[in-house]
């Protein structure tokens, strides 16, 4: 028994754990090392064995030569790992924002469960959600890889480019947009400061008639001014930089603002008294339509947010 040889074989054995032919492999290596030592050094001693072992290579490298199994995730699926994780996490992110704003729990069985939480809890929840998403996608891709089946996974594009092409037309469009949104935000702010609302029934400002009650008027006005201001700031940023984070932050904040709109009950918000009494059913339908319209806008903004997050994920992958 040579201590050094046994220690070396023990190390190799550790890296070959789970291989049924492990003992056979170790016997082959032992036989070879002893043979070589005797042939080249006359007899096997701890010192001569040390040299032959060193020439044979580090235990881990030797073991890896025997481990020619299938990779955990096939090379063809590696890009899917990042894209699918980005997609899944984008959903998680959007639902987390919604859970914080609406104070509600969301369940999309079996992948997404987002409990109602505060902003501070969300900061802890999101990293855990990301790890869950990464683990879920890894597990699915692992199972597909191991199944050895020819699986063609969908490759969602969403018309998302890693780097958007900067054209002069786009720059002009953004400049016009920035000027328009800044003017709109400024004008709205002026009206808000003067009348505490930006929603009017008539254009006679000497005897102005607001659409909403003072409380609701202030609430909706601030939300709309906030959305326009966000859009102006985002356009300004996009003129000087092309980071997808600009879109992501803008859409996330827009979602928060839109969510705040739901906090003001619409059925008691109207200050306008109509000349005819509307039937109860019609009022209810107007309320539902308002809520539905807001929801549709929220969905569009959420889709844009997901696109921005996917673009961020892809950009990191490209790097």
């Amino acid at each position, binding site marked *: 028994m040579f201590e050094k040889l046994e220690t070396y074989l023990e190390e190799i054995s550790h890296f070959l754990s789970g291989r049924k032919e492990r003992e056979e492999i170790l016997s*082959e290596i032992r036989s070879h090392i002893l043979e*070589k030592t005797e042939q080249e050094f006359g007899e096997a001693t701890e010192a001569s064995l040390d040299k032959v072992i060193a020439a044979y290579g580090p235990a881990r490298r030797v073991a890896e*030569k025997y481990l020619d199994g299938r990779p955990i995730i096939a090379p063809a699926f590696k890009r899917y790992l990042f894209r699918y994780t980005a997609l899944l996490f984008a959903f998680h992110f959007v639902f987390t924002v919604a859970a914080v704003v609406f104070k509600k729990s969301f369940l999309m069985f079996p992948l997404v469960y987002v409990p109602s939480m505060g902003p501070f809890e969300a900061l802890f929840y999101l990293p855990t959600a990301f790890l869950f998403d990464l683990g879920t996608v890894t597990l699915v891709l692992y199972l597909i890889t191991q199944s050895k089946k020819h699986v063609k996974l969908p490759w969602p594009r969403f018309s998302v480019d890693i780097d958007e092409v900067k054209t002069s037309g786009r720059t002009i469009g953004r400049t016009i947009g920035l000027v328009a949104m800044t003017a709109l935000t400024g004008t709205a702010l002026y009206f808000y400061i003067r009348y505490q609302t930006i929603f009017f029934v008539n254009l006679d400002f000497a005897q102005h008639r607001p659409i909403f009650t003072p409380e609701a008027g202030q609430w909706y006005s601030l939300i709309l001014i906030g959305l326009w201001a966000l859009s102006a700031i985002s356009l300004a940023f996009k003129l000087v930089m092309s980071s997808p984070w600009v879109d992501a932050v803008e859409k996330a904040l827009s979602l928060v603002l839109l969510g705040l709109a739901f906090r003001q009950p619409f059925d008691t918000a109207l200050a306008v008294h109509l000349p005819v009494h509307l039937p109860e059913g019609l009022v209810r339908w107007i309320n539902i339509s308002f809520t539905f319209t807001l929801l549709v806008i929220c969905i569009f903004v959420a889709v844009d947010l997901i696109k921005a997050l996917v673009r961020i994920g892809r950009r990191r992958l490209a790097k």
Partner: protein
Amino acid sequence: MDPETSHFETEMNRGFLHILVLAMLEKDMYGYSMVRTIRDLGYEVEENTLYPLLRRLEKNGWVKSKWDVSEDRPRKFYGITAAGRGLRTELLSIWKKQDQILKHILEEISHV
């Protein structure tokens, strides 16, 4: 040898070693004697590459092995199988074809 060339050499060796081993094993040999024979021919093969290669060839039925325990120290002898001979013939014909193509191209280059 710079790392780039060394990387390509490793890639080329992978195929070459298969043919070489299948050619050598017409006569039963044990691992260390194969290493020595190859080295005497002026070619270096990493020992920790040869054994896993022999194992893979055996797993696929192209090589067979048996332990000889008649001496103090047991030795594992390897030999080629009928399937291994078939594979060797095919690999050699591929290699010859590649060699012909290369020779042809190199000849053309030399005339330019």
